[in-house]
């Protein structure tokens, strides 16, 4: 599978990037506004100061007179510790103040004009106000300029800016956390469907029926269609296998019968040996075909599992009875120690599973031994163990033994298809149980196969 970047991560990153962008934007805006606001505050005070001074302008004996009110200067000191400069000119001649201070171009009379400039190496903000004063016969334009350095404005703006920066970072962190939450929540249905599908058993091909968001409905639909096609395809091949096995079994029986007749009439040992080998091969093929048929039956029935309430002990007794003849041919005793244990399941399948296991046990047991079936129950499960006195399962891991056509290491001379445990394991899985394989702990013990099933 080619794994591209996770949608969740991508979504989180995208949302976080948007949040980061918004944070930076809002910080920039607040900073600009703070600068503007503190600038306006200073402008207002400068304008008030200039106006206060301009109000004292008067004409006395043909000369422009004014006084600089204490308040005009004190108010400038009230907002910040900024340096203060001023200049009053009448018709371009300095009446008082700082000669080098260049006032901004005056606006219309009575209008305060502001300008940012540099004075004695410091950035200043100037407010200038023009007023016509009658001196003698002619009106003289008197300009009052008040200036202040901008350190206070900058300090206030910087303070607000760093406060805004802190808030922006906090906002971003919150937004990033929320983004992750949003991504997780949005992707939750997808993950739920994915985990519902992956939780299913290997042969569970039923359609996924669960509420899905609109965006996921097509995916779910496609998935269900795919599973449907897959199921049909599997069904067809199972049918085909069953059909094939069935067709092979009948002629094989004929071949065996004929071969046995031939064996009886055979003249030489060599001929008899050849015929015996044919019989062995035919037996193996017949058995394989039977098990393929079993497997197909199991696969077919599992799809639509019956859930009848059954007594495991009765079922075991029935199976034991069916296999009694085979066992007695080799002097093998089948011992059943069981009390009633109610389970829910498909009797045909469970019998099939147990038969396969018993069949194996009989097959691998030496003559004149016993196979013990024992049922024990705990709170939730029933355990049916089948213990033989054969060679056991060997030392290799047991897990592969339940896979199709896998056979143990120590089975070379015994006829088998490798399907028996597979069938049993599949049946138990379909019933919500499992197959446990172990070597018996008892003296002279062989394999111990346990069918674990939930109680009804």
């Amino acid at each position, binding site marked *: 599978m080619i794994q591209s970047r996770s949608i969740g991560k991508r979504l989180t990153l995208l949302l976080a990037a948007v949040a980061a962008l918004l944070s930076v934007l809002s910080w920039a805006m607040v900073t600009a506004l703070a600068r503007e606001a503190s600038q306006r505050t200073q402008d207002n005070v400068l304008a008030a100061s200039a106006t206060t001074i301009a109000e004292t302008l008067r004409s006395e004996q043909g000369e422009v007179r*004014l*006084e*600089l*009110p*204490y*308040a*005009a*200067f*004190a108010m*400038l*000191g*009230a907002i910040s*510790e900024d*340096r*203060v*400069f001023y200049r009053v000119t009448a018709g371009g001649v300095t*009446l*008082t*103040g700082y000669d080098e201070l260049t006032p901004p171009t005056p606006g219309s009379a009575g209008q305060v004009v502001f300008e940012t400039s540099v004075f*004695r*190496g*410091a950035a200043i903000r100037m407010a200038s106000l023009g007023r016509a004063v009658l001196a003698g016969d002619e009106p003289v334009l008197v300009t009052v300029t008040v200036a202040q350095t901008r*350190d206070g404005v900058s300090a206030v703006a910087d303070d607000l800016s760093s406060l805004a920066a802190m808030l922006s970072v906090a906002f971003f962190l919150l937004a990033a956390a929320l983004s992750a939450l949003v991504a997780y929540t949005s992707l939750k249905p997808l993950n739920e469907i994915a985990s519902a599908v992956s939780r299913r058993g290997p042969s569970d091909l039923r359609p996924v029926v669960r509420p899905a968001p609109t965006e996921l409905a097509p995916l779910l639909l496609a998935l269900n269609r795919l599973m449907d096609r897959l199921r049909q395809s599997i069904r067809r091949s199972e049918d085909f296998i069953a059909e094939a096995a069935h067709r092979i079994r009948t002629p094989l029986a004929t071949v065996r019968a004929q071969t046995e007749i031939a064996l009886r009439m055979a003249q030489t040992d060599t001929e008899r040996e050849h015929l015996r080998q044919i019989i062995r091969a035919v037996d193996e093929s017949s058995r394989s075909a039977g098990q393929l048929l079993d497997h197909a039956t199991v696969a077919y029935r599992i799809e639509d599992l019956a859930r009848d309430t059954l007594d495991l002990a009765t079922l075991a007794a029935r199976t034991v009875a069916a296999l009694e003849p085979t066992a007695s041919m080799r002097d093998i005793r089948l011992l059943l120690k069981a009390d009633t244990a109610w389970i829910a399941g498909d009797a045909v399948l469970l019998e099939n599973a147990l038969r396969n296991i018993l069949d194996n046990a009989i097959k691998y047991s030496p003559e004149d031994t016993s196979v013990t079936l024992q049922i024990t129950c705990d709170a939730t499960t029933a355990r049916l163990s089948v213990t033989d006195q054969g060679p056991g399962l060997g030392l290799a891991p047991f897990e592969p033994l339940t896979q199709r056509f896998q056979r143990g290491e120590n089975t070379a001379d015994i006829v088998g298809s490798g399907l028996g445990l597979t069938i049993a394991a599949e049946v138990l899985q379909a019933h919500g149980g499992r197959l446990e394989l172990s070597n018996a702990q008892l003296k002279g013990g062989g394999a111990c196969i346990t069918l674990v099933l939930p109680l009804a």
Partner: protein
Amino acid sequence: MYHLGFASGLTLTLPLALTLALTGMAQAAELELEDHRVFPALQAATGGMDTGTRVLRVASTTDLDVFEPYIAAFQAARPEIAVDYSVLSSSNLHRAIRDGVAFDLAMSSAMDLQFQLANDGFAQPFSSAATEALPDWARWRDLIFAFTTEPAVVAIHSASFEGLDLPATRQELIAVLRDHPERFVGAVGTYDVRESGLGYLFATQEDRSTDAYWRLNEVMGRLGPQLYCCSLQMIEDVAEGRLAVAYNVLGSYAEDWLDEDQSGRMQILTMQDFSNVMLRTVIIPTTARQIEAAGAMVDMLADLGMRELQGDWALPALSHSGPREDAGFGPIRLGPGLMAYLDPLNRRTFLTEWENAMEQR
């Protein structure tokens, strides 16, 4: 221990001190120094011969007698630094700094002039733990630092007030002066605000704060007032009985005088209606060269300004109340408002009014 060190240091550095004194005198001729002394370093500089002795040049309006213990304390902490101490009038000091005369420290009682120097860029910023500890109202922009709060008081010659109630407000003072002209003609003294920067500061602040000020001036003007440049001379004349009343003298100087002179000839009155409180301030001029030493002195003064107990120091510490303009009793506010009365137009107008009130024919 320091006394021993001082004695030996004095003999060793005498020739150097002489030359310093001589150069100092040359400067003095231009600057109209009222007093001048060089305090040689108590110990030679440790950095070898190249560094030479570091001389901290202080321009101050504070009388030498008053400030000498401060220099001693400074040299006890920094024995390698010599101090060249010049006493100038506040307006001369202001002019000297403006003209770029090299000083490492300028200390003045004229807050307005000091403030203008800082505002106009003649002071350099300095910041340390000690200056940061100063209350906001006692510093401005790390350029100017206050280290004392000194009220203006009225000094009276006790004998002249025999049988009279002592005035507690300006109203009462006006009444007393008006009702007993025979006692007070020619015996009322105050600053000549045209010459004294501190006098001008007190006068303009009173103009702003109390309307009784001009009526008092009118009454004083009718009594033929004596005008002074400095507090100390007024106090002396009151003590000697040449003056009955001295209006607006520095409380700290008057207290010092009373500490020395227990005869009871002089009393100090604090006006209850309003009282100016001046901050003695210090700046490091842009022309300063011994910036580190100047900073050390500023630190010492700031620390002393923040002390809790008066101790033996001649100048009072910063008051703990801070400015209370509503009550009219707080220190004069260190801010651009001080510049209003320094404007030549305003000054001319104010002085004209003052002269009209004071010099009645």
